[in-house]
């Protein structure tokens, strides 16, 4: 029983970052119907950006947040302008191919810039944990979880309540009508992309205390978050968030009872089973195909 509860706790904490990335992907998808397959690469990149700033300031992971947010926003802006913007509105194949190409490019760019060996961002709290009764909560993961919750809440408030959110939803609904109402759809797309990327990047940075920085570190995070996005019903922020946590729990439970690498397999099996029975994701609708 202890194992079970402890693994659920671990799962929720790990799931927070999945949820954060998944919501980042969803914000982008919701506005421009584009699945960001490059999220894993941005996740990786942010860790390297963190290392870069650290290497001449010596700041710790949490002091680095603003700097990395700004740098990744800048990278997001540039990539949007040169890679995403030209394929918007084209077939979904084109958007898949470009984001995958971008992902591949960024993943190898960090090798060119920082070399192929794994780096570490030293942190005093790497091994610190909080004890609650008989259960332990790793401090870095707990902080990452809390930051993730705050960011997700912030973004969903932004989307649902603010003026910018309204123009986002209007653009998602019908870009032409939105243009007529004076909304600059390009600007909305750019901002949505930047928000999505910065969320992913902060997720990456927050895990530097417990992960080595290497060029493939983002891949499993991308994979799990994409599955969470699909299960959540593609474009549904609440769904993506809940499924991110859920997949975190599933992974953790499978890892606890079998072996660490079985966790991902467990997620995939659950993903397939849910799809077999619940075609439109967990929060589905009536339409059917075929």
């Amino acid at each position, binding site marked *: 029983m202890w194992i079970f509860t402890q693994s659920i706790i671990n799962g929720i904490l790990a799931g927070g970052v999945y949820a954060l990335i998944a919501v980042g992907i969803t914000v982008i998808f919701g506005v421009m119907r584009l699945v960001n397959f490059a999220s894993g690469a941005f996740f990786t990149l942010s860790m390297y950006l963190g290392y870069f700033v650290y290497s001449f300031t010596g700041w710790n992971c949490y002091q680095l947040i603003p700097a990395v947010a700004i740098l990744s926003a800048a990278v997001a802006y540039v990539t949007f302008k040169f890679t995403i913007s030209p394929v918007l509105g084209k077939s979904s194949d084109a958007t898949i191919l470009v984001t995958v190409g971008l992902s591949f490019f960024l993943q190898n760019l960090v090798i060119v810039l920082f070399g192929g060996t794994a780096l570490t961002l030293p942190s005093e709290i790497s091994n610190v944990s909080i004890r609650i009764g008989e259960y332990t909560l790793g401090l870095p993961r707990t902080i990452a979880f809390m930051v993730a919750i705050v960011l997700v809440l912030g973004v969903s408030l932004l989307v649902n309540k603010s003026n910018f959110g309204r123009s986002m939803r209007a653009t998602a609904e019908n870009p032409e009508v939105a243009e007529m109402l004076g909304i600059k759809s390009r600007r909305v797309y750019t901002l949505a992309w930047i928000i999505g990327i910065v969320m992913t990047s902060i997720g990456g940075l927050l895990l530097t205390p417990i992960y080595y920085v290497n060029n493939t570190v983002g891949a499993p995070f991308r994979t799990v978050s994409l599955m969470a996005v699909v299960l959540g019903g593609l474009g549904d922020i609440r769904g993506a968030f809940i499924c991110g946590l859920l997949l975190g729990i599933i992974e953790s439970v499978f890892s606890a009872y079998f072996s660490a690498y079985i966790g991902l397999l467990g997620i995939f099996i659950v993903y397939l089973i849910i799809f077999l029975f619940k075609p439109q994701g967990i929060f589905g609708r*009536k*339409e059917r195909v075929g």
Partner: protein
Amino acid sequence: MSILLEANDISISFGGIHAVQNLSFQVKKGEVLGFIGPNGAGKSTCINLITGVYMPDTGSITFDGVKLTEKHTIRERVHMGMGRTFQTPRPFGNMTVYDNIFTVALQQNSFAAAHEKTKEVLKLTEMEHWADVASAKLPIEMRKWLDLARILANDPKFIMMDEVMAGLNPNEMENSFALIERLNQAGITILFIEHVLRAVVRVCSRVIVINEGRFLAEGEPREVLDRPEVIEAYIGGKRS
């Protein structure tokens, strides 16, 4: 005249909004039935119910003597003889006009027979000169015709035309009227969903009016369109 399609007391709602409520109507074999109503009346939802995109929450639809169930997928209904066009035409943009039709014709024919069928359809729709044009480059009215031509390659009994006249100029409309008449003479029953009321009066032998998902009126086009409740729905409905 015998009955080809019968909707019996069908209803469907989406998240508490009743898109179609207790609607019943019949389509007789060989007729051109107009299906009209103001925006958001539930016309497109009805098409989706008939073609099988949605299943009705209650009620039933019978086509050609067969009661349609969950097991009749969109595809099976097509092979029973249904066809539909879309409000915005949807050609296979990566193919020529000929291949668009040919691909569909292959379903019920061998390669040689499918070529024959394609030529026959091209002739019937007078699209022969467009045969080797990339369908993505067709002008809008020809795209609408291509949608129809592809359906014809399946030898349908029943075609649902979803706003085929929208966006056409008077001259193009005349050509479309002639095509619809030709199809009808060839024995195809047509459900004609339309906003352009002039077109409805011109081609339909009978119309059904629905409003807010409910049955409103039925009868000879000119007479029905003069009824106060129909005028009210069209003018008043939009205001409220």
